[in-house]
C-alpha cells in the first residue's frame, strides 16, 4: 500500500502539485437480510483502489483508480494534477489550508470477534430465529432482519509527511416487525429503525444486542399499536428516547454545522445551513443544559464517527459544538477552517471509499449526558408524551423547521408511564426546540447510536455517523400535527 501511495504523491509533485495526498483503501463488506422466514440479501463484496487529491495552480483536483500498477498510478496522479489545473481556470483565489503536522502512525479500533470469521450460516440462524419469534405474534405480517459488516484497511500518505495506516471494523444489525391491519400499517424496530444499531465493533455487538430475546416484544408492540390511542394534536411536553434524540441531533445540529454547507460549497441532500458564520460564539442554540460535542476520539466510544485521523491526515478531536447552550463550533476541514480564520481543522474529512473525494462529515455528534435518572425524570413529569424510535424525518434546506414522527409513544400522566400512543409526531424550529430542553438523563441511559446511511455529495457518498444521546425532556412543543385528521 505504501509503495502505491508514495509513488502517487511523488508523481503528483513532479507534475506540479504543491500539495498531494493519497488514500489506498481495501474494503470488505458482508450484507445479510431476512424477510418472513427466508434469506433475502446475501452479498459479499471487496474493493481496493487509490484516490489521489492534489492542489496545483492553487486549485483542487482528484482522480482515482483501481488498477494498481506503477504505470496506472502515475497516470492517475497526472490526471489529478491536470484536473486541478483545469479547476484553476475558474478560481477566485488560491486554496489555502490551515496548517497541520505530519504523523506516522498505525491504528486499529478494538474489537473482540472478527465478524468475517463467524460462519455466515450462524449469522443467518440468528436473523431467522428472531424472524420466527416476531412472526409467532399474531398480527405481525412482515418480519425483517439485517446484518452488515464492513472492514476498511486504509493507508494515507501526504506531502506534509504523514503516513497513517488505519483499520476499522464495523458491525450493525436490526430487526423490524410490521403489522398491516385494515388501512393502517404499524411497525416496531429493535434496537433502532432504519437498520438497527451500528458501531465500530466486532461480532460482539450482535451478540450483546440479543435480537432473539427482544423479537417477541418488538412484534407485540407493533400489533398493539393498532389499538393504541391516537397521538393528540396539542402544544405540550415531550420526552424523546435516546435513539430519536440522536436523529434529532443529526438533522438539526449535525448537518447545519457542516462548514461546507455554511459556506455554500454543498447543498446536496441536506441543503445548506441557517448557521451563518456571524452566529459563531453568539447564537444561543439551546438551553444552558445543552452541551453538544463532535468527538471522533475512541475515548468517546466505538461510534461510526470514531477514528484516529480523518481523511486528510488530521488527528481525531473533540470539538465543543454547543457549550452551555451557546453555539461554539463547526465541523471543518483544513480549507474551510482557514476560510473562517480558525487556526486548525477539527478533523472531519471523511470518504466513503477510495474512489470518492473526502468531504466534511459528521463524526460522533453527541449531546453530553445530563444529571437525571430516567425513573426520576418520568416521576417528575406531570403530563407528557414519551416518543421513541424514529419513523420519519423532514427538515427544510436550511435545517431550521422540522417535523419528526416516531414508531411509538406513551402517555406520561402524574409521573407515571401510562397507555400506548400511536402515530406520535412533533415539529418545531431548531433553536426554539433546543432552547426548550430542560432535562437530560444521565450517563447510565446514554447510548452512542450509529447512523449508517447519511448521504451527501455528488457523486453521492454514504457515511456512518455517531450520535450519543440519553432521553431528554422538552417543553412547549407542537405535537401530533403530522397525523392529525
Amino acid at each position, binding site marked *: 500500500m505504501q509503495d502505491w501511495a508514495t509513488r502517487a504523491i511523488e508523481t503528483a509533485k513532479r507534475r506540479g502539485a504543491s500539495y498531494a495526498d493519497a488514500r489506498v483503501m481495501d474494503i470488505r463488506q458482508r450484507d445479510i437480510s431476512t424477510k418472513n422466514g427466508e434469506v433475502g440479501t446475501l452479498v459479499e463484496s471487496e474493493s481496493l483502489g487509490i484516490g489521489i487529491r492534489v492542489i496545483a495552480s492553487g486549485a483542487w483536483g482528484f482522480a*482515482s483508480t483501481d488498477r494498481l500498477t506503477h504505470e496506472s498510478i502515475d497516470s492517475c496522479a497526472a490526471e489529478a494534477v491536470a484536473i486541478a489545473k483545469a479547476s484553476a481556470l475558474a478560481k477566485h483565489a488560491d486554496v489555502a489550508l490551515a496548517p497541520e503536522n505530519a504523523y506516522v502512525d498505525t491504528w486499529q479500533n478494538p474489537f473482540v470477534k472478527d465478524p468475517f470469521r463467524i460462519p455466515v450460516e450462524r449469522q443467518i440462524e440468528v436473523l431467522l430465529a428472531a424472524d420466527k419469534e416476531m412472526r409467532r405474534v399474531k398480527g405481525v405480517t412482515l418480519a425483517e432482519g439485517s446484518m452488515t459488516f464492513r472492514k476498511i484497511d486504509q493507508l494515507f500518505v501526504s506531502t506534509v509527511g504523514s503516513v497513517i495506516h488505519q483499520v476499522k471494523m464495523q458491525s450493525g444489525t436490526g430487526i423490524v416487525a410490521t403489522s398491516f391491519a385494515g388501512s393502517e400499517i404499524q411497525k416496531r424496530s429493535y434496537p433502532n429503525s432504519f437498520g438497527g444499531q451500528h458501531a465500530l465493533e466486532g461480532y460482539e455487538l450482535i451478540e450483546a444486542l440479543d435480537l432473539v430475546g427482544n423479537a417477541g416484544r418488538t412484534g407485540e408492540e407493533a400489533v398493539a399499536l393498532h389499538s393504541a390511542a391516537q397521538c393528540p394534536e396539542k402544544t405540550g411536553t415531550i420526552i424523546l428516547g435516546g435513539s430519536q434524540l440522536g436523529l434529532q441531533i443529526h438533522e438539526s445540529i449535525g448537518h447545519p454545522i457542516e462548514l461546507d454547507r455554511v459556506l455554500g460549497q454543498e447543498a446536496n441532500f441536506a441543503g445548506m445551513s441557517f448557521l451563518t458564520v456571524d452566529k459563531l460564539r453568539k447564537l444561543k442554540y439551546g438551553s444552558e443544559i445543552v452541551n453538544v460535542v463532535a468527538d471522533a476520539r475512541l475515548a468517546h466510544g466505538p461510534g461510526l464517527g470514531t477514528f484516529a485521523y480523518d481523511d486528510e491526515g488530521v488527528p481525531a478531536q473533540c470539538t465543543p459544538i454547543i457549550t452551555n447552550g451557546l453555539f461554539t463550533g463547526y465541523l471543518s476541514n483544513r480549507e474551510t477552517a482557514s476560510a473562517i480564520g480558525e487556526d486548525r481543522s477539527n478533523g472531519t474529512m471523511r470518504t466513503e471509499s477510495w474512489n470518492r473525494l473526502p468531504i466534511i462529515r459528521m463524526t460522533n455528534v453527541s449531546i453530553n449526558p445530563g444529571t437525571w435518572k430516567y425513573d426520576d425524570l418520568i416521576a417528575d413529569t406531570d403530563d407528557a408524551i414519551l416518543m421513541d424510535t424514529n419513523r420519519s424525518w423532514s427538515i427544510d434546506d436550511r435545517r431550521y423547521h422540522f417535523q419528526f414522527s416516531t414508531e411509538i409513544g406513551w402517555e406520561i400522566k402524574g409521573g407515571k408511564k401510562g397507555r400506548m400512543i400511536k402515530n406520535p409526531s412533533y415539529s418545531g424550529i431548531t433553536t426554539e426546540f433546543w432552547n426548550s430542553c430542560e432535562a437530560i438523563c444521565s450517563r447510565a441511559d446514554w447510548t452512542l447510536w450509529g447512523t449508517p446511511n447519511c448521504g451527501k455529495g455528488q457523486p453521492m457518498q454514504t457515511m456512518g455517523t455517531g450520535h450519543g444521546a440519553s432521553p431528554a425532556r422538552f417543553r412547549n412543543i407542537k405535537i401530533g400535527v403530522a397525523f392529525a385528521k
Partner: protein
Amino acid sequence: MKRTRKASLSPRLRSAEVNAPSTPLLTASELKAIAERIMKFSEADETEVEIDITTDALTRFANNIIHQNVAERMLHISVRAVMDGRTARATTNKTDEESLRRVMAAAEKLALHQPEIPGLLPMLGAQKVPTVRRFFAETAEASPQDRAR
C-alpha cells in the same frame, strides 16, 4: 453437474478498445480473460460473470468557482453462482488469482444459504450479442480543461 457457463460483458466494455483516457481501460479481450480465469475456479451448476469497467469525470461549481473536480476508473466484477436451484452473487474489483478464487467461492457458498427458487430458469448459454455502438470518442476524450471551459 455443470449445465451452462456464461460470461457476459456489459455493452460499455465493447467500446473500451477505442477509448483512450489517461488511465487506459482494459480491452474486451482482457476482460474476457478475467472472466475465464474466474470460470476455472467454479464448482457451481451454473456461473455468470459480469464485468463492467467505467471511467467517470464530474466537475462541480459553487460560489462561481470549480470547487470539486473529480475522475475515477473502476472495474466491477460480479459473479453469480447457481447451486441446487439457489443463486447468489459476490463482487470484487481485484484481479489477482487469490481474489478471483475467493469471489467465486463466496458466490457458491452464499448460494447454498439462499432459498431454493422453484422453477429457476437455466442461464441463457452462449448468445450472439449484437454490437451496440453508442460510444462517442469526442465525449470520452473531453479533457478536464474542456469541462472547465
